[in-house]
């Protein structure tokens, strides 16, 4: 008897339908084959399926079983086919039909229970698009599937439940959307809980963080060790506006595909904050592998990618950031295919001014030779520095100032800054209505002056500033964008001279070797 069960395969962020065909012959020796380019994990699924079915109280038939995963020419990866294969075999054993409009997806445990499986959100998106309404998924993944509207999600905890459901003993009730709490805030974000109000002093760097949050500009923090660079970077997500619905969908898609959504998790509504270690490989950072997977830059999509000790990253990794920084996505071509992942992130990098870290510090003297400073700074190439709109010096704060509590009340908290940032974002949205631009950082150099309404007086200041500080063409336009964000924070529809003057303090600084 031939049984067909529908499932899906996730390739990168794309999903295709997979038909699981199971045929049982009574003739011949008992055998169990899987065909259709199974990977090792799929091939091993035979053992899990047999054991799980036996442990669910059903005797496994001594027959010749062939499983085909169609389309047969696409390699199948992962453990998500355990459940559809066992459903098809059970349907054959119990002689009950499987509804044709349902998708099955999930990994089995040997005891017959279903395990949390990655990629359920992508499956649900595909189902909606292709017109399938019923999803049978592990119960820990149900919330994830429910985030896609109009889905009938059947949470399955054990294979036994499915057997009872198929036999009609006790049907599995589809998840009630009302019982699922409003999209839970997933703590994917290691930076949650940091308040910018906890950063003492360093008003300049805090203001820079505010501008970054409002305009989506990239930022390089440079300062002595222990100055608070990391604290400032970590407090950034807290002052950024929450993800828009469409953004949340994009982020959840990436996190689901990479298995980063925890059991019972649903939609991700926090801004991602990723801080990969500086030994991270280029593939880990950018994405790739023989079967391409999203890297850290994609996991930081719509959020912050914080590269601490920027100069310690490998040269190749740093240079590989160039194209994603420009395009907001990365295309990875490998022998097994070409995939595009979104990577629209705000880069926050931090480094010391010199190898010992104390160049320009007032309390301690720098011990580095000009040669070693030169070598250290040359690790970051000019083109990369040029793509970072804002260069910010962070000071060491004297210990005495840290313990003095008198100023605490005057320090602005994340909440009040976030309020200002939200308003500035709204101004940008209103201004760029009808364009594909969301934030000032996304304006192309070509249209900076057309879109950002800079007064002629401010433009003169910008021009003379560019001359005085030898700005490149790119950083000239970037400074204009930063000035636009400063004006937005000020609530001004026109960029005025003081806005440009403030923006020039954050200008790109290139190391000139002197």
């Amino acid at each position, binding site marked *: 008897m031939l049984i067909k069960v529908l499932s899906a395969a996730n390739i990168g962020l794309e999903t295709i339908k997979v038909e699981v065909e199971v045929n049982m012959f009574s003739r011949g020796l008992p055998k169990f084959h899987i065909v259709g380019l199974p990977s090792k994990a799929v091939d091993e699924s035979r053992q899990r399926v047999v054991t799980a079915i036996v442990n669910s109280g059903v005797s496994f038939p001594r027959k010749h079983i062939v499983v085909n995963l169609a389309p047969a020419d696409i390699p199948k990866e992962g453990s998500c086919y355990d459940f559809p294969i066992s459903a098809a075999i059970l349907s054959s054993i119990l002689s009950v039909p499987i509804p044709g409009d349902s998708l099955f997806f999930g990994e089995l445990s040997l005891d017959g229970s279903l395990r949390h499986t990655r990629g359920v959100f992508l499956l649900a998106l595909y189902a909606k698009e292709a017109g399938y309404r019923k999803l049978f998924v592990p119960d820990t993944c149900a919330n994830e599937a429910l985030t896609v509207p109009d889905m009938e999600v059947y949470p399955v905890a054990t294979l036994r439940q499915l057997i009872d459901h198929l036999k009609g003993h006790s049907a599995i009730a589809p998840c009630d959307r009302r019982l699922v709490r409003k999209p839970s805030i997933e703590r994917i974000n290691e930076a949650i809980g940091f308040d910018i109000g906890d950063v003492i002093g360093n008003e300049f760097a805090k203001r820079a963080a505010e501008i970054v949050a409002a305009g989506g500009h990239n930022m390089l923090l440079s300062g002595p060790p222990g100055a608070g660079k990391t604290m400032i970077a970590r407090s950034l997500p807290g002052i950024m506006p929450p993800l828009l619905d469409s953004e949340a969908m994009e982020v959840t898609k990436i996190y689901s595909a990479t298995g980063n959504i925890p059991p019972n998790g649903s939609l991700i509504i926090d801004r991602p904050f990723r801080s990969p270690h500086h030994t991270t490989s280029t593939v880990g950072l950018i994405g790739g592998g023989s079967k391409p997977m999203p890297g850290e830059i994609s996991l930081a999509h719509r959020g912050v990618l914080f590269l601490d000790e920027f100069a310690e990253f490998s040269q190749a990794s740093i240079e590989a950031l160039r194209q994603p920084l420009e395009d907001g996505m990365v295309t990875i071509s490998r022998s097994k295919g070409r995939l595009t992942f979104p990577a629209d992130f705000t880069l926050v990098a931090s480094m010391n001014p010199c190898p010992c870290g104390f160049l320009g510090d*007032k309390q301690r003297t720098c011990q580095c030779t000009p040669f070693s400073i030169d070598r250290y700074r040359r690790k970051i190439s000019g083109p990369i520095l040029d793509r970072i709109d804002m260069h910010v010096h962070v*000071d060491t704060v004297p210990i005495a100032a840290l313990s003095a509590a008198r100023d605490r009340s005057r320090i602005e908290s994340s909440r009040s800054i976030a309020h200002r940032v939200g308003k500035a974002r709204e101004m940008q949205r209103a201004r760029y209505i009808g364009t594909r631009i969301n934030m000032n950082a996304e304006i192309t150099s070509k249209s900076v002056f057309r879109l950002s309404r800079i007064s002629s007086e401010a433009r003169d200041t910008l021009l003379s500033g560019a001359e005085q500080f030898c700005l490149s063409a790119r950083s000239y336009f970037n400074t204009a964008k930063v000035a636009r964000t400063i004006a937005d924070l000020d609530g001004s529809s026109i960029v005025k001279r003081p806005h440009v003057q403030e923006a020039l303090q954050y200008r790109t600084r290139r190391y000139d070797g002197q």
Partner: protein
Amino acid sequence: MDAFELHDHFITKTGVFCGFIIGCDTVLNVEGTVSKKDQNFPVKMRDISGLPSTLYYCGAYNSTIFSRCLGVVGSRRITPYGKKVIETIIPEIVDAGISIVSGFMNGVDACAHAVTLECGGKTIAVLPCGIRRIHPSNQFSLYAQIIDSGSLILSEYPGKTPTARWTYPRRNRIVAALSDALLVIEAAKNSGTLMTAGYARSFGKPLLVVPNSIFEDNGQGILALLRSGAIAVGSAHEVLETFEHEGLLNDRRSGKNGGSLTREALPHSLEQQHVLSLLRESSLSLSEIASHLSWPISSVSTVVMQLQEQGEIVEQEGVFYAH
């Protein structure tokens, strides 16, 4: 000048090739040697024994460049203070027609060469390596500028001879020998700068120093020199006095006092005055200015940028200094 040609490739210390282009008018007289037998060998070097008898040069060789020379040497780790001293004192000395001799090292040396060229003076850079090797390699643009502006690069070593521990003191000897007086700006204890000063003293050249803080590393060498009888100077005027005293300078325009750079005074707003007076007391970062004045950081940024535009203050590593 519209035709440019690639001068040559220079091997840097790390073995990397780097090339640069020099205007063709200077290429005509760009390299050569001069020995004791030649008439135009620097006179000052004839009298001192133990100095090389052959010099390799790059640039426009003209013996008048040696007639009145001030050696300017100092630390590789130049601070904004040292930079300010050079920018204040050197232009007036250059105006008096004095060439500036130094050792082409990072820091004070390079700054002295650069400032001299900026105000249209002549400078002599003495290398511790072969004449065609640029050391330190990051200063190749300064090397080109020196040749381009008709100044001179000297070395006792031919071609691309690498540096060695002993080539630096030998270079320092030449610097001291060529100078009529030596001005030391910022020197640490046990530094090469003190060695140059020692040579100058043994050659009987006046030794001038610019005082520095006793709390700075770069003040310790200065302190040692002052103890051993160097003359403290605080302006270009005092340096030129030494030249007058030596009989090397007599037609100097008198009456000009001190060496402060004159700037056109721009009217300052009240905010600008606040910031300026604060920065004149001590150098501060933007965050520190904001906390001193209790102003919002955005207006501090704006006011400081206004002052930067007027050239009243300069920034280094995020710290602002008033001129």
